[in-house]
């Protein structure tokens, strides 16, 4: 219950700071530019719109996480607003879960609004058959952002905003290459290979959430893929939040 209250408040903060409005406006501007550039795509305008549109949702979401999520807890420490919360009957872990859930809800709102706008544009251009694939891709993008938010909250709980932004960006970039890291690991000497495998297993497996190319071709994915991605996102986010809670539990608020 307390986590829900904190989540609702975090969501309210993001709405009042016009994070959602700003991101939706930026996304719509990106869609408009893509539409204007589509005649140059030699008949592949629809594919271009889907590909850039979905990439835009992921990149804008990442920007929100880096600008807001990585200072989510640090800002409360700096402004000392956290004193008013943690002096109430609230578990520190519930506080972190609430912060994560609130920012995740914000990102899901941005992703869904932009996804629906993208589907609407495709319908207007006569490419309505890609709609289900786009919605699946938006769902996976939302899961990806949920996982990266959990990492941002974890780093924010134990580090400064600048460092946690760097760590989160690092995990995001390396996570995008986690498949390739595993491939490299097989080709390197055993010691280095082991290190690469450990790194590949530590960072989130983000290619699991990327079906932009499929969606651009109008193809949907399987229910198994969607289910696996959902479970993986839930488990990875839970692990990150457990680590964050363990570090946060012993923290002194001077």
């Amino acid at each position: 219950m307390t986590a829900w209250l904190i989540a609702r408040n975090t969501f309210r903060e993001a709405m009042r700071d016009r994070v959602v409005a700003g991101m939706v406006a930026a996304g719509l501007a990106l869609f408009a530019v893509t539409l204007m550039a589509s005649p140059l795509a030699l008949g592949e305008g629809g594919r271009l719109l889907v590909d850039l549109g979905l990439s835009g949702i992921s990149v804008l979401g990442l920007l929100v996480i880096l600008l807001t999520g990585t200072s989510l807890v640090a800002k409360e420490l700096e402004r000392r607003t956290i004193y008013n919360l943690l002096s109430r009957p609230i578990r520190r872990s519930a506080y972190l879960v609430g912060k994560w859930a609130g920012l995740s809800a914000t990102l899901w709102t941005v992703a869904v609004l932009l996804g629906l706008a993208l589907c609407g544009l495709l319908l207007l251009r006569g490419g309505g058959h890609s709609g289900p694939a786009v919605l699946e891709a938006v769902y996976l993008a939302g899961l990806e952002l949920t996982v990266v938010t959990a990492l941002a909250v974890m780093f924010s709980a134990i580090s400064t905003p600048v460092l946690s932004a760097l760590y989160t960006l690092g995990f995001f970039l390396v996570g995008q290459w986690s498949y390739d890291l595993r491939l490299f690991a097989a080709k390197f000497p055993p010691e280095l290979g082991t290190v690469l495998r450990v790194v590949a297993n530590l960072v989130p497996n983000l290619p699991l959430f990327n079906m932009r190319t499929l969606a651009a071709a109008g193809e949907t994915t399987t229910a198994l893929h969607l289910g696996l991605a959902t479970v993986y996102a839930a488990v990875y986010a839970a692990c990150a939040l457990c680590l964050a809670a363990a570090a946060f539990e012993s923290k002194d608020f001077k």
Partner: protein
Amino acid sequence: MQSPTVEIAGRPVIGQRAREVGAPDPSLAVCTRRLAKDYVHPWTMRRTRGLEALDLEVGRGEVLGLLGPNGAGKTTTLKLLVGLLKPTRGRAWLLGHPVEDTASRRGLGFLPEQPYFYDYLNGVEYLELAGRLSGLGGAAAHERARQWLGRVGLGERPRLVLRKYSKGMLQRLGLAAALVHEPELLILDEPMSGLDPFGRRDVRGLIAEQRDRGVTVLFSSHILPDVEMLCDRVAILLGGRLTQLATVGELVDGGRQSVEIRCAPGALLELPRQWAGEVTRSERADETVFRLEDESRLQEVLAGLLRAGVAVRAVTPQRPTLEELFLAAAAGERTRRSA
């Protein structure tokens, strides 16, 4: 004979183990046993003592004032009690629950020093959030939020966002947030700081009202008259150590009591030799004042003055103020440390 029981991390501990950890008396609102806090510098690992083995018991319904100069350990003590700091050694209980248990904060209202709030919320929204986080239901939280905003004099503009609040308004809002769920125990860190005389009077009134309702109040302050006016007992902290704990009356009566004898002007220009060092003479606008450092020689001095034909107007015992006692205690602590 019944075995003592104490709860640790939500589990009951009975018998010998409970005796070892020191089960608190359930009639106490606040109990600390050898509570200590060391701050460790993250780079140099140098330790600084924040609080030294504090044993403190505050009964239910009592008002205890925590006095001390900056860096004495007042805020450290209060933060340890509300769970914002983790103790290095020792234990503490609030309302019978160990402070590491969230249940200890169910009946607690806390006002931090110079409180900060979410500036995107308005007064009603903030108090609603505070009430709900302290266990009130949605409708009750809304009703209490409006009620308390009015009680602290901020009810005229309930939708004003907090970024537009002045410092005094924020302090009042913080107090309302500490009281919105009607707690059994109030812990206030410098509740009068930043307030004008009217604000101070209002806050004093609110604390007195809570005291009359039977709420236990523990607060720190630099403003000694407020402490003297409100508190049943006073604890003086110096250099992280509890140096005195007594009722205001005991502290004041415990000090040496001097006596002033006010006489008509120009009386007894030269003091007899046998009074030297014990009686001082001073001239005021329309009277002469003889001051005795203690009352042991009062009869003798008074008889001497009357024999000399001095017109005595009044004899007034001079009780030391809390401020004088506090300054004396601080000076004593400085001497102890330098020795």
